[in-house]
């Protein structure tokens, strides 16, 4: 049974999505989608345990062995990613779209779940596939469904946000497609492992360089690497909070993984860092993202926009980890991928709670909220502390690995920059906390009441796990380390 898990992982949400259309009833569909997400989560965890113990699972679709057929290939890194995607989904789905946040009537809300499950299918597909063209297909499945999900947000700006994301995303996706074509031209194969092997003799050619360039730019658009991030703040701001929670926690993460795969699996560290010196491009951009994102976040008046810019900065940490070209750095990047997924997902859910009650995402409208919605506010505070990277929270773990990566290379200045940029997080997190804690409540806040329990528990599961994974790192640190070693070919 274990041998079939990679296929089931993708097929389950894929087939569950049309079932949503058939079921149609909003509540039934909600329960169904949640159950599917939980089942997928169980599958992902099983795969993770399996790969940790027995190594890579390879699955030949249709019985056609690689490199001829399509191969699903799950090593620790892939399973880790699938765990994140399904884990976040299983927390976000029970939350539901929160009836007030969607722009479509209730009798059409089953389509929300359909799109959500398709998005999950795409993300999982990207996580587990070993085939380059498959990556493109799943990228597009993810993108198309996420444009839809974003456009479901209340207010007309969701539409323009989704449209600009669509334009950027399509260009990114097409770049990836072009890059795959160029690689295919040079190698005659689409299997990533096989491609890596066959690229070796032709590494010096311009075609390969161009292919690498298109790959990187394509993935970077999806990942919102500075300065290709413009689509992101608008998209996350105007999407329904639940969607922001899911996409910020998973979509950019999976794109990061695609980039990592491109760098380490297809082209190899020797080429990327030895010949092309990709780090000379990526490291400054990452550092710029860390600072620009955090500083921009400080000036936002809407909490969702603030979180979106913070995401941009946090993505900077991840790409910085990649650019270090070391096990510590990549571990930091991967751990942060997980941790940031947890905390940003949790924070967006907190925001969903707040906007559900206040019907506003302006920071100034949250004055004195700590008194009226204590649990929600406390969750925000803890999530915020995790963004800052306070010890005892998950954010600290990622910072630890990244700083260690810098120090091991003797780059004290880089370590200092990482730490300084995390200080900027104090600025934008505290801006919100101060308003919630110290400002006298406005009328709007006085008349509100705490969020219903059904909306609080998923928040606390996510936020609680940032604390759990801030102390107990066996599943994150160790797995990420193994994943990093696997990706770098050391294992």
């Amino acid at each position, binding site marked *: 049974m274990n041998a*079939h898990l990679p*296929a*089931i992982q993708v*097929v389950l949400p*894929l*087939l569950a*999505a*049309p*079932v*949503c*259309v*058939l079921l149609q009833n909003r509540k039934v569909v909600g329960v169904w989608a949640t159950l599917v997400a939980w089942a997928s989560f169980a599958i992902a965890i099983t795969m993770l345990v399996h790969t940790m113990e027995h190594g890579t699972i390879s*699955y*030949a*679709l*249709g*019985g056609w062995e690689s490199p001829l057929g399509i191969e699903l290939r799950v090593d620790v890194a892939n399973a880790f990613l699938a765990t994140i995607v399904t884990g976040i989904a299983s927390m976000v789905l029970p939350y539901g779209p929160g009836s007030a946040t969607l722009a479509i*009537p209730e009798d059409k809300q089953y389509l929300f779940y359909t799109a959500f499950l398709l998005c999950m299918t795409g993300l999982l597909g990207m996580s587990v596939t070993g085939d380059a063209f498959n990556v493109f297909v799943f990228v597009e499945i993810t993108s198309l469904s996420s444009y839809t999900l974003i456009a479901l947000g209340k207010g007309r700006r969701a539409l323009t946000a989704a449209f600009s994301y669509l334009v950027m995303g399509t260009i990114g996706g097409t770049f990836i497609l072009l890059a795959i074509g160029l690689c295919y031209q040079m190698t005659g194969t689409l299997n990533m492992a096989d491609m890596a092997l066959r690229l070796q003799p032709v590494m010096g050619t311009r075609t390969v360089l161009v292919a690498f360039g298109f790959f990187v730019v394509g993935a970077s658009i999806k990942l919102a690497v500075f300065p290709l991030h413009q689509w992101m703040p608008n998209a996350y701001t105007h999407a329904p909070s639940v969607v922001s929670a899911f996409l910020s926690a998973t979509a950019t993460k999976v794109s990061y993984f695609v980039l990592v795969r491109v760098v380490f699996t297809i082209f190899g560290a020797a080429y990327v860092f030895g010949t092309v010196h990709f780090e000379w491009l990526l490291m400054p951009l990452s550092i710029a993202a860390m600072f620009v994102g955090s500083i921009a976040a400080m000036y936002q008046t809407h909490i969702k926009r603030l979180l979106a810019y913070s995401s941009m900065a946090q993505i900077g940490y991840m790409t910085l980890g990649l650019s270090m070209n070391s096990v510590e750095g990549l571990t930091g990047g991967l751990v942060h991928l997980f941790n940031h997924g947890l905390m940003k997902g949790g924070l967006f859910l907190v925001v969903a709670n707040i906007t559900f009650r206040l019907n506003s995402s302006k920071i100034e409208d949250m004055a004195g909220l700590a008194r009226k919605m204590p649990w929600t506010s406390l969750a925000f505070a803890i999530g915020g502390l995790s963004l800052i990277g306070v010890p005892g929270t998950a954010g600290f773990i990622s910072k630890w690995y990244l700083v260690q990566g810098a120090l091991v290379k003797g780059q004290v200045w880089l370590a200092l920059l990482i730490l300084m940029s995390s200080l900027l997080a104090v600025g934008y997190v505290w801006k919100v906390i101060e308003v919630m804690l110290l400002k006298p409540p406005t009328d709007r806040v006085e008349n509100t009441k705490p969020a219903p329990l059904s909306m609080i528990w998923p928040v606390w599961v996510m936020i609680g796990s940032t604390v759990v994974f801030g102390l107990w790192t066996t599943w994150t640190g160790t797995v990420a380390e193994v994943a990093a070693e696997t990706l770098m070919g050391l294992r």
Partner: protein
Amino acid sequence: MSGPNPMRMREMVVVREISRLLIPFILLFALYVQFHGDFGPGGGFQAGVIFAAGLVLYGLVYGLDALQRAVPPRLIEVLAAGGVLIYGGVGVASMVMGGQFLEYKIFDPHHGEHYGLLLIEAGVGITVTAAMTAIFYAFAGRDRARDEEAR
């Protein structure tokens, strides 16, 4: 202002009559492309689009209402979902019978590939037809849908 105007179309007798003649052949041709997909050029994608083109032509000439009476929007949704389920179902069936996902050989050592492919392409064809028609519905019926929302 989107979608055809049935009033003007009604006056175009030539278009109406030619369409009436052609539509069955378009649909038939779609089926031909569909079922010869494993021997010659063709397959579910192409067939689906051709089939949908026949439906769209009907809609354009005789009006959206007439088409939706023949093929209700809900049916289109169900078909779109059903096609995917057929596709996935074949894969799952092959897995249940002990093969890999979509390993048709498992059904029958000699003709398995053939049967499997036929089913798969049928699924694809149904979904593509439904999807193309759904797109047509969405755009052509937008005015009406907006009026409903406004109400």
